């Protein structure tokens, strides 16, 4: 008993005027394609939330246990640089959003400008972070690399910071816990910086493609979804900044 049912006609030939060149053939139309891509990016960002979530959980637990150590350790961070970085990132989110708008409005030169500005701001953020990291390295506040407790058992050895906060010296065991703070600081900001670097690299690629007109011919999905990614990286920083920099600034 044979019952094969074969729909045996050839695939219809179609000219490419019927749909844009960028429509992938497994999608029915560009709307479905854009919808799927956007949804995929939101889902990906959800995975990133879970990724950073583990770190935030660890932070919350240890901050609860070792509050005095966290307070004094966070005084070692420069609030000016941190605030500046926050402003830089928020501005870069603005320029990115403007870029997306330009792409949707098919303004190619506007898009390229916005992408370049975002790129520069992103580099600026990383530059400031480099300055901060360098300071930490010089003061031996990098866990695992000759980590020094001097600033915490004897705050007066650090005149600038002492002048501002008048920290009391920490007992040795509590001072040791500042290493946990800095571990979390470096891992969290490091992960964040890694995501920034990846974003900046993609931005560089996008600037080239934008100049060739890739995103201003109606196909804005890539720019839109990258915008989502960039905003996400910004939002992570918005959480990192108060948690790491702003613990009890005024005792």
């Amino acid at each position, binding site marked *: 008993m044979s019952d094969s049912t074969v729909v045996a006609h050839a695939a219809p030939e179609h000219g490419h005027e019927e749909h844009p060149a960028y429509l992938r053939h497994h999608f029915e139309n560009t709307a479905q394609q854009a919808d799927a891509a956007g949804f995929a990016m939101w889902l990906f960002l959800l995975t990133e939330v879970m990724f950073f979530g583990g770190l935030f959980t660890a932070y919350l637990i240890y901050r609860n246990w070792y509050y005095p150590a966290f307070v004094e350790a966070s005084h070692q961070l420069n609030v000016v640089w941190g605030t500046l970085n926050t402003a830089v990132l928020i501005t870069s989110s603005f320029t990115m959003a403007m870029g997306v708008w330009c792409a949707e409005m098919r303004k190619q030169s506007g898009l390229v400008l916005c992408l370049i500005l975002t790129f520069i701001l992103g580099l600026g953020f990383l530059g400031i972070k480099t300055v901060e990291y360098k300071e930490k390295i010089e003061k031996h506040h990098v866990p695992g690399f000759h980590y020094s407790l001097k600033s915490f058992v004897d705050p007066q050895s650090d005149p600038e910071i002492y002048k501002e906060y008048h920290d009391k010296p*920490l*007992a040795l065991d*509590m001072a040791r816990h500042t290493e946990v703070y800095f571990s979390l600081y470096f891992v969290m900001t490091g992960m964040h910086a890694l995501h920034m670097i990846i974003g900046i690299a993609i931005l560089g690629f996008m600037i080239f493609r934008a100049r060739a007109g890739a995103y201003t011919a109606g196909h804005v999905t890539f720019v839109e979804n990258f915008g989502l990614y960039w905003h996400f990286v910004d939002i992570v920083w918005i959480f990192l900044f108060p948690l790491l920099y702003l613990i009890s600034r005024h005792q």
Partner: protein
Amino acid sequence: MSHISPVIWQFLVKWMTTFALFPPEASKLAPQMDALLFFEILVSLIGLTLVILIVTTFCILYSKERHPVAVQIEGSTILEATWTIIPLGLFLVMFVWGALIYFRVYTPPANAMNIYVVGKQWMWKAEHPGGQHEINSLHIPTGQPVQLTLISQDVFHSFSIPAFRVKREAIPGRYTSVWFEATTPGTYHLFCTQYCGTSHSAMIGDIVVLTPDDYKKWLAGSTSGMSLAQNGERLFASLSCNACHNGKPDARGPNLANVYGSKLALSNGGSVLADDAYLRESILNPSQHITQGYAPIMPTYQGQISEEGIISLVEYIKNLNSDYRIQQTLNTTGLLPEGEGKTTTAMPGNAGAKAATQGMVKQ
């Protein structure tokens, strides 16, 4: 156990242990645990049989030859409800029963005799309060609740006595505890059940259960002479704890007499129960919980004392009900020649360093 006919119970237990399906029951907990296990096995057998019966019956009745045309049935809310509620009900019974047993196992009675166990790669070290030390074995009496306070010196280990149906992880950095009461003299397996490296399978030993008389004999015959508390007193002096915790009214550190088991008011407003874990923490991380009314000047002894040393100190403080012995040690220190075992008035942050330079007794 009392609810099942004793005959059936005896039969089950005998059958299971004779055929080596169950380990011997050697603790008071074991029959309680086994009762729940039997219940779970029974429920599982019934459930499995039910599923197999349903599937087999349907396969026979509705095989293609017998029942060539299938009847499309959407479902049945009543059946769904049945096989949701009944399993849920049974599982909840197990949950409650199991939780009761769990609470029982990890809540030692007040009259439990405490033995400290330190796990390290790859051996178990047991320290009896009377100063007896054992490696890879544990001698205990019948009829006496025994609490084990466990800690690891390196990685996670797990102290398991199948015959007693108890098991507890030994974790680096904090105490865990478990208790049991042995009922039958004999020798039983002790296993490490948390993978801990190369010789994990060699980290095994014997639990030797003795009658109370035999146990007394064993205690007498295997002591090193100094009890844990005595060793603790020795450390208390040599580490200069007595400099601040000297029991005087103007002392820099709180009075430790009768502190064990009391509720302490902390400087941050909260309060804490002064148990073994607290005592250990306050030696290693004193800044965490400063007693109200005292300055946060106690130095940490992290890195300067081993887990066995901490155990001795904890045992000492547990048994301290007056400052008499502390005073004695201060007097003795005072009589020593200059520079030996003496500290100058301790400066914040200095005492630890001083103790480190003055012949640290690390065990």
